């Protein structure tokens, strides 16, 4: 192919089709390329109802138009060679992943990182793609969780299962927060996504557990186009933890996920992410492109959606977990730590769209750039004409390590109601040599000193994370910034 770029070559190298194709084209992997036929194949393979196929095709047509018009969005402060979407394969059965027989077959460097993070042994196996023995039967664990959740009426399952078992809920809510034509990557995801998570919390139910362990076990091998949909009915409450603190060696180059959250009157959804996809090597070779659309809708009065993210991985991060504050008195929150090292690039932030009266939003963004990396905060605070007495407070702090990294802040503020109140604070600082020296003079190593200072900088965000996640996030920060100073 004439347009065979470095990126597409890498994608090809890394996609599973090399192995999958040979064994069984028809059953495991779709041929590379994107067309209506491929969409039909995906929908067919997944035995989806007609409405899903229609929805996917609508998305595909929207994507095709966008691809023809302007192509990928280029406004973000990130650089990458054009992606050849026709070189990707858009369907591979999850089982096609070849499992390693034991941890002995896993990259020792990866194991060393697990050790540092204190990941339990069985989880290490799952993360590294090792077949898990009967002692830790993920299926039975999952069933136990499901039973407990079912008792209170919470539905929590894979997206495919939701389409099969609860098509009416999927049909009612899918695409209502992120429409199929929302943006280039969301459209692509809508057309070709193969799986993800679905969660439905009925009226008045306080979800009895953090939805985390289950996810870590079950979704670790989800492909590159994930779809998540969470609905909290009136007065419901759910806390959802996404991702994994271990450096998963997912070999997919492009990740384009979509997450939709819907909170009805008085409902609360707390969504926490710790993302540590493969960032590429020191020279920027390889690594994940994490192009994600995450958005929540506070549909009912006094509802609340809170995003907390710790982004340390991926070669490129492009994501803006947002909240549409539709219900009066609703609350949106965004707490973010984004760390970039070496040649990583991040353009991340949020959108708070105030539509209802007396709505309130809080943004706390902490960007840390080390090495040759570039880290941008991009955020929109919009106060609509009917959003009387809406308030926002934004705080964006950047910390620079070394003298070759960059930090940027792009705040957009759009206020159309005179009673609105918007506050924006921003700071950029370099990690202080005198701070590091002070720590070392007290006996701490340079590495521990940097970790401590950076963790202190991120504290406001970390305290929003569930306890066990916060501890791992701290350690992860240490791993990411290893060798960043000195």
């Amino acid at each position, binding site marked *: 192919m004439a347009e065979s770029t470095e990126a597409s070559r890498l994608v090809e190298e890394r996609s599973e089709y090399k192995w999958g194709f040979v064994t069984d084209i028809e059953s495991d992997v779709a041929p590379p390329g994107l067309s209506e036929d491929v969409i039909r194949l995906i929908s067919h393979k997944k035995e989806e109802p007609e409405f899903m196929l229609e929805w996917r095709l609508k998305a595909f047509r929207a994507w095709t138009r966008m691809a023809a018009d302007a192509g990928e969005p280029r406004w973000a402060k990130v650089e990458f060679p054009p992606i050849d979407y026709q070189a990707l394969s858009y369907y591979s059965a999850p089982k096609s992943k070849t499992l390693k027989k034991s941890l002995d077959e896993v990259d020792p460097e990866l194991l060393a990182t697990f050790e540092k993070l204190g990941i339990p042994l069985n989880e290490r196996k799952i993360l590294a793609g090792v077949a898990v023995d009967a002692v830790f039967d993920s299926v039975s664990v999952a069933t136990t969780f499901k039973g407990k959740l079912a008792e209170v009426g919470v539905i929590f399952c894979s997206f495919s299962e939701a389409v099969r078992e609860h098509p009416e809920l999927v049909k009612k809510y899918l695409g209502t927060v992120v429409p199929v034509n929302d943006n280039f990557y969301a459209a692509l995801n809508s057309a070709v996504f193969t799986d993800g998570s679905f969660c439905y919390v009925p009226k008045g139910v306080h979800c009895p557990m953090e939805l985390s362990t289950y996810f870590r076990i079950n979704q670790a091998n989800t492909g590159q186009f994930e779809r998540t949909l969470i609905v909290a009915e009136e007065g419901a409450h759910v806390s959802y933890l996404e991702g994994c603190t271990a450096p998963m060696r997912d070999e997919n180059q492009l990740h384009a996920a979509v997450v939709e959250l819907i909170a009805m009157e008085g409902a609360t959804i707390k969504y926490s992410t710790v993302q540590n996809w493969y960032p590429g090597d020191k020279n920027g070779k390889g690594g994940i492109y994490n192009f994600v659309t995450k958005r929540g809708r506070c549909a009912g009065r006094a509802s609340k959606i809170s995003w907390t993210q710790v982004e340390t991985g991926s070669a490129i991060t492009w994501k803006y977990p947002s909240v549409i504050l539709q219900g009066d008195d609703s609350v949106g929150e965004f707490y973010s730590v984004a760390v970039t090292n070496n040649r990583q690039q991040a353009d991340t932030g949020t959108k708070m769209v105030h539509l209802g009266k007396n709505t309130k939003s809080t943004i706390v963004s902490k960007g840390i750039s080390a090495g040759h990396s570039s880290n941008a905060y991009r955020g929109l605070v919009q106060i609509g004409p009917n959003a009387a007495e809406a308030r926002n407070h934004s705080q964006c702090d950047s910390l620079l390590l070394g003298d070759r990294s960059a930090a940027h802040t792009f705040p957009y503020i759009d206020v159309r109601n005179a009673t609105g109140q918007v506050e924006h604070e921003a700071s950029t600082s370099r990690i*202080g*040599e*005198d*701070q590091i*020296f*002070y*720590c*070392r*003079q*007290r*006996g*701490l*190593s*340079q590495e*521990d000193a940097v970790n*401590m*200072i950076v*963790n*202190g*900088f*991120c*504290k*406001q965000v970390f305290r929003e994370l569930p306890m066990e996640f916060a501890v791992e996030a701290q350690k992860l920060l240490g791993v990411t910034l290893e060798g960043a100073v000195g």
Partner: protein
Amino acid sequence: MAKDLMLEVCDLHAEVAGKQILNGLSLELPVGEVHAVMGPNGSGKSTLAAVLTGRDHFTVTKGSVRYQGQDLLAMEPELRARAGVFLSFQYPIEIPGISTAYFLKAAVNAVRKHRGQEELDAIDFLKIAREKAKLVAMDESFLNRSLNEGFSGGEKKRNEIFQMLMLEPTLIVLDETDSGLDVDALRTVADGVNALRSAGRSMLVITHYQRLLNYIVPDRTHVLAAGKIARSGGPELALEVEEKGYKSIAERAA
């Protein structure tokens, strides 16, 4: 028979940003003694503290420093600290988001580990910390506050002495610990320092003014001028400085 030396500075030359600050400074600090180092601004007092603790950008061009017989200059800053060298900073640094207790527990345990002692757990640490905090009249609530953040000048200095009490160093360098302190705070800080005076410990009290030395009475006093010691004497030398000023003493030496 000469006393055992804690610190032996020999013909020390050091520069910062290409500017020569120390010009052949020699100093012997025996084990168990407290020496005052006085001098006007720019005489090299703080540079001496920086060189002894291994600060970046201070380059030693000539001379040597031995600490308990070891080559101090060859050691990384954290190794010097773990080996018992403590600097009370003239301007203590703030670290937002990290509590004093958390920071100091990590420091204490780094030192204990180096000494082959068992690390303290949170409960034991807090028990000791509360006791020591009383010695410098610190309310224990400051243990949970971010390190030095929003502390007054006096609180910062007391926090330095508190850390010193916790770390139990062998060689203590006080860099202008009296600056910015009122009389009461000065007394508190001095009480903390005096509590650590012992036969096995030595101190270098760097100060511009004599008044601190009313509370921490030195065994010997050295006066710095142009990067080397212009005169040495007993505690009375500090009073002479106070009376006649640095200029006359430097001139007499020359």
